[in-house]
């Protein structure tokens, strides 16, 4: 028999095998999850969770699908948090510091408490990327925030009411569209396709008997 531990789901005690994650422990206990469970692989941010180990002061945060249970763990999930997402037109948006001032002025109310960074389930330097956003340094903001899964725990801990994941997403979109270098080989290929450069070749392939396609496939040259 595997080792059992006590976990307190929303304060109620359950005995579960110690090898489970918080998410699978909830299911073991009998929950049929609807909220707080998305990709189950650490990418969607649906299962933001806050916990404290009995007797310890520190409040910890995690993704329930990526975290193993511990004995005497008090668990509360955060399946939804009201982030502010401002609506904008990506085609006409300015890409300077002004845009942050207009859309997310609350970032300038940051008091530097660093609670966001301490609470990041992905261990990102959230306060630093917000500082970059304040300066209008979208590239740094994009780079530092890249692994964000938008779980919203940082925002739940922020005394200034900042919606960090949305600020970062805006910075990344501006960086990706306007600031990152343009790709000339992609532009060239689009023109070729527009001009029908590959049309005959493709139509030809679509008509070919399977035996000829097999020949082509099995003898194709593979780039090293």
């Amino acid at each position, binding site marked *: 028999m595997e080792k059992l531990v006590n976990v307190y789901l929303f304060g109620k005690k359950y005995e579960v095998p110690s090898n489970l994650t918080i998410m699978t422990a909830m299911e073991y206990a009998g929950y049929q999850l609807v909220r707080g469970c998305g990709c189950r692989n650490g990418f969607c941010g649906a299962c933001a969770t806050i916990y404290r180990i009995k007797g310890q002061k520190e409040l910890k945060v995690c993704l329930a699908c990526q975290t193993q249970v511990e004995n005497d763990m008090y668990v509360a999930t955060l399946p939804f948090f009201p982030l502010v997402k401002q609506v904008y037109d990506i085609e006409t948006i300015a890409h300077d510091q002004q845009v942050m001032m207009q859309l997310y002025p609350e970032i300038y109310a940051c008091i530097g408490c660093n609670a966001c960074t301490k609470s990041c389930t992905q261990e990102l330097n959230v306060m630093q990327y917000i500082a970059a956003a304040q300066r209008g340094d979208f590239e740094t903001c994009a780079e530092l925030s890249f692994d964000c899964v938008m779980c919203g725990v940082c925002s739940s801990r922020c005394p200034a009411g900042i919606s960090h994941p949305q600020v970062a997403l805006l910075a*990344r979109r501006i960086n990706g569209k306007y600031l990152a270098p343009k790709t000339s080989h*992609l532009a060239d290929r689009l023109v070729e396709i527009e001009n029908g450069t590959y049309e005959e070749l493709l139509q030809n392939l679509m008509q070919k008997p399977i035996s000829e396609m097999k020949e082509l496939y099995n003898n194709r040259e593979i780039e090293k």
Partner: protein
Amino acid sequence: MYSSDIKELIKKVEARREYNTSYEPARMTAEQKEQLLATYHPDYRADQFELLKIGANKGEKVPHELAEMLQAHSRITADSVNLDDVAYDVDVLVIGGGGAGSSAAIEAKRAGANVMIVTKLRIGDANTVMAEGGIQGADKPNDSPAIHYIDAFGGGHFAAKPELLYKLVNEAPDAINWLNELGVEFDKAPDGTMITTHGGGTSRKRMHAAKDYTGSEIMRTLRDEVFNLQIPVVDFTAAIELILDENGKCAGAVLMNMETKELMVAKAKTVIIATGGAGRMHYQGFPTSNHYGATADGLVLGYRAGAKLLYADTLQYHPTGVAYPEQIFGALVTEKVRSIGAKLVNVNGEVFMHPLETRDVSAASIIRECSDRGNGVYTGSGYGVWLDTPMIERIHGEGTIMARIPAMHRMFNKYGIDIRYEPILVYPTLHYQNGGLDIGADCQTSNIENLFVAGEAVGGIHGRNRLMGNSLLDIIVFGRDAGRSAAEKAKNTDCCKLTLAHIAEFEAKIREAGIETDKVSPLLLPTYSHGNPKRS
């Protein structure tokens, strides 16, 4: 953290690492691949399939678990909803909030349609976010859509529908550009050249990536754009039945609030099924890399209304699912790990295959290594093979893993395994539904007018196996096109009288065929008890 037994076995991998890193294993011949697949690939296990007794694909084989859902009862009868009490009335109804559904909604909106997304979880809780490795597109000078076509057609065993594959490859560069223009941050060199790699079965390096968060980066951008365009997203609401009109055309769906179970009618001029895959059906008992809601809902909805499936008997088992530790068992280890240099190694420390064969061949080869050949590594609960990640930094230098595959590092590091210095254990995991609803080049189903499909719920784009990076591509290409086609079609559609008569007709077929079942479908969500003796 590895157990001491496993740590002992790692020594064999370390001893041969230098030799293995430079060793270039031969690729298999066409005959070798055929033989391997027939013997070891799960799709070839006849006892795991059965013939459908009713519906448009009567007489064709599908996995037992899918047959059970396709031939199950509806969750409702026609008189459980009042079709005159319309909760939502739109031009285009998109069912599913992943990459395909979001792309479809964006393009339908841009085409002027009144469009709405309904999704049983949240927008973005989808397989798209876990597509880590990349997206294909033939945009390099040494590449072309024609070469892409040959790679995908051959990799899919020459079974793809040519008109669909043509769209996939020919619209790929435009799809990449579309994403870039929305602000997706692709990995680029300082001069703007896309940093591209191989995937299994590609003959050119055309895999574009955003580190190993490619799908995540795409999904969060699309979701943001859906919100910017102020497209209504009705979340935690599942479509449980399609609604037709009296001429048999699709005209909406019955919706169910996942929390309150309230039923609602959504009336639409056109409907797009973008419900994704089926990993949570756990075919043949496999673990899955898929998201929580991947239960083949779209196939079930379509089939009950009379739509035809194509290649519903073919699934993709991703060769490298996590085999250890058990907390992340079955999770995806992106193919990109092999694209950038890690090789597959058996218990003896030997490289037993070329790391970039197609997925079906790679999966079958790993299963062979762990079964008949007896060269698997015992993980404590099963077998796996090594994926020797430290090779990556031997080839490309220190820092490569954190720069190119940070998500993989993070996932294992939480369990005390640093993939920069220690290899990882992998085994095939249920990853992708190759088959799905049969559509034409306009994304409309072949036999139900005004019903469109995009993404993983489509069958025939890839044939009987899909190449890495062609799924992120297809959700964009077919998502956009389905959105445009459905918006266009909606302009010339006047919805008439709604009906759910097909539910009773299907029920009659179940009876006539003598099918005895207490199951209802679509499944919507799996139920897990993780070995709880009181609940199994």
